């Protein structure tokens, strides 16, 4: 009884602390938006980063942060945070419009390799639905399947429909849980990086100038620098400090 009370108090404390942090995040977010409206972009950027330090983030926050960077002509940072925003907002029309505008400012001399259809589908899937949705749906079906199995064990039912229902719900539930895990992994893994300042990529065939704002695929960190792949598929090494991961 006493332990239960302590647990409740602890949960309540954590909840309240969380609520306080959330309130702080919201206040800072509104202040940062006000600074953007008044044209104080540099100060707004500082404020948006302060929001992130509270432990909370949002697609709108990344979006506004990217907009402030764009206003200061920091195209690389703008690309980086718009891409982060895209992870949370998916194909939000305003976000897509802004990304189009920013990419028009990037002096990208590289053609892009065609995206495989399955990759496009996968990207659409995980940009449309969050991992939580898959998790909740998958966990519900998984629980139902477990209950059906328990029911079958207790009552020793021999119904074919019962068996089909068990197998079906378990299969679909596990599949949804797998997708949830993959989507969650996709969200938390590095998708790529934006070049934050003009740099030179050293490849086997020579050096290539890479302008600010170009999106590259990060492969790994090596002794030669960060190994990346350009949009046209050329691989090479750049200084890791010029990469803004998203």
């Amino acid at each position, binding site marked *: 009884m006493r332990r239960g009370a302590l647990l409740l108090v602890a949960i309540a404390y954590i909840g309240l602390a969380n609520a306080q942090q959330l309130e702080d*995040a919201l206040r800072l977010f509104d202040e940062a938006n006000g600074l953007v409206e008044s044209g104080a972009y540099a100060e707004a950027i500082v404020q948006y980063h302060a929001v992130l330090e509270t432990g909370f983030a949002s*697609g709108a926050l990344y979006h506004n942060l990217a907009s402030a960077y764009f*206003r*200061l*002509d920091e195209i690389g940072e703008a690309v980086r945070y718009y891409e982060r925003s895209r992870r949370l907002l998916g194909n939000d029309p*305003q976000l897509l*419009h802004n990304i189009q*505008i920013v990419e028009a400012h990037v002096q990208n001399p590289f053609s892009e390799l065609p995206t495989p259809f399955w990759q496009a589908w996968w990207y659409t899937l995980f940009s449309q639905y969050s991992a939580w949705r898959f998790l909740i749906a998958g966990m519900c079906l*998984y629980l139902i399947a477990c209950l059906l199995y328990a029911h079958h064990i207790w009552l020793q039912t021999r119904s074919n429909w019962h068996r089909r229902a068990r197998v079906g719900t378990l299969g679909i539930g596990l599949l949804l849980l797998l997708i949830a895990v993959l989507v969650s*992994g996709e969200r938390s893994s590095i998708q790529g990086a934006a070049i934050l300042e003009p740099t030179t990529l050293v490849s086997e065939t020579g050096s290539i100038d890479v302008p600010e704002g170009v999106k590259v695929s990060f492969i790994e960190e090596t002794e030669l620098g960060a190994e990346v792949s350009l949009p046209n598929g050329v691989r090479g090494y750049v200084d890791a400090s010029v990469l803004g991961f998203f």
Partner: protein
Amino acid sequence: MRRAILLIGLASACFVSLPRYSFSQTVSGLVSSPTIGAQETVSYTLEISGTNASDIVDPGPPAAEGLTLVSPIASRGTSMSIVNGRVSRSVSYTWHYRPEEEGSARILEANVTIGDSTFHTSPVTVTVVPQAQRPTPQRRSLFGGFSLFDNPPDAPPEVTEQDIFIRATQSDREVYLNEQIAIDYKLYFRPGTMPRNSRQADSWDAEGFWREELDLAATPVPSLVVENGIRYQVISIRRIAVFPTRAGELTIDPLKISAEVQSPDADPFNSPLFSQRYSTVERASPVINITSNPLPSGAPDEFRGAVGQYTLRATLSRNTLEVGEALQLTLVIEGTGNIALIEAPQPEIPGIFEVYDPEVSISKTGIDALVRGNKTFTWLLIPRSNGTFQIPPIKFVYFDPSQARYIVRTSNLDPITVTGTAATASATTVTASGFPFDDIAVLKRDPQWVAATHTPLHRGTWFYLLLLVPVLGIGVTVVLRRRTTRLATDTAWARNQRAHPLARKHLKTARKRLSEGDPDAFYAALEQSVLGFVGNRLNVHERGLTRAQLADQLQKAGIRTERQQELIEFLDTCDAARFAPTPPANALMEKHYALGSRILSTIARELESVIL
């Protein structure tokens, strides 16, 4: 009469085409021809101008190598000319020399004393050729002219390389990459050649160079020079500035021209009807070799390849303006070098400004033999928000070949103050979705908060616990189901399972009866607790057991004899107490309760050890 007219004409022409003689004192040593036959003589004339004849100490004949002086007595002559109202006089002394042998001969320098000063001429080289190679003298009539009925005149004397040639002068032979070199192609011709209709005879190229043509005077005036004892008129025919675009040994093709010329030795009267006889000659300048050195290392990051000497000037058209108004940032780079290829420095303009591509204008001059000028970059800036903004100092880096180092020019700008607020985008400047045309939609206001640091599902313990709980539930179900089934089918196991709970239940009842003061019921419950426990654990019906049967069962179960005895004595005590005429005292009942509990736990322990 015709001769008189011709002489008057020639005199007029000479008068008109007289070069600009300097009015300073000059001394020149001239020969009649740089090439003579072995049987001819060459006259050497010492021409002194710009002084009074009385000031000149009569000079002696210069010494010669390979030539013999015919007579040490000079023939002296004076002349006077009037140019633009100025009168100039000259005095000449002429000697004749006879060649000693074929080959090269030299007339050494002559010394002339004018007043207190002594002047020296340059040595002159004369080439002596076999007489057969020299043209035959023209035949004249007795009256000094040609007769229409005479035989046709001989071919005119040949125009030699010494009569007309091209010389190229260059400002430097070894330069840095992209450093400017001025090349001046000059045509030297003897006054009598009178070139005309000159044109470039062949293509000309300077591979590895960027070229800029320099200006030439619209009406060039020939200058007069003396080269190797020969008087030449000189004009610039092409002036060009070249900039090596790569390092290494580079070559510039010779410039070839063709022109119609007369022989300077031709007799103007050696033609029917006094017509002049021109022949076409081609001349080429020497090949020019340039060594282009790479620029030294250590160039600042802002260096974009400019080489020369430059200044930088940056200005803003205004420093205070409203949002949406335009201002101009102008950058002027001025100096000597390859102006055309100068790249615009990249000013770090704050992102608040909409920046348009710069307008570029170039102004060049090449009058003083080098390309000079300025390049102007003008950016149009339109602020999209208010505030005070500072454009960082603009840097322009170039390499100065004269100092052999990189120079950084910096120009500072005043802050820009933007007032007012941005107007809301009008309907015509938004897209179909309502977003600004050609600009971003800045803010989104609905934050759907998530954790800033996202832990993927597969790294969270709770996810695996969540998956495990239903599986555990199924496991529990399986266990419960098996237990239920065994309880229903295995009586001994079921009684064994129930022994402890039932014993505890009866003990609890006994305690209750004790507190209620009901000895009969107390001892019945106490006896039931112990006896029922033994019966359940041994799976025997305890109700009909005699004490001997009970002892026998306990013996089979491996309970020690003293324990058996203790149990039986306890049961007897309980029976005696139940059926005693007077109820026992509470203290005794308490004692029996404790004894029963102890026996129960002792028996349970021994049975457990035996069964295990």
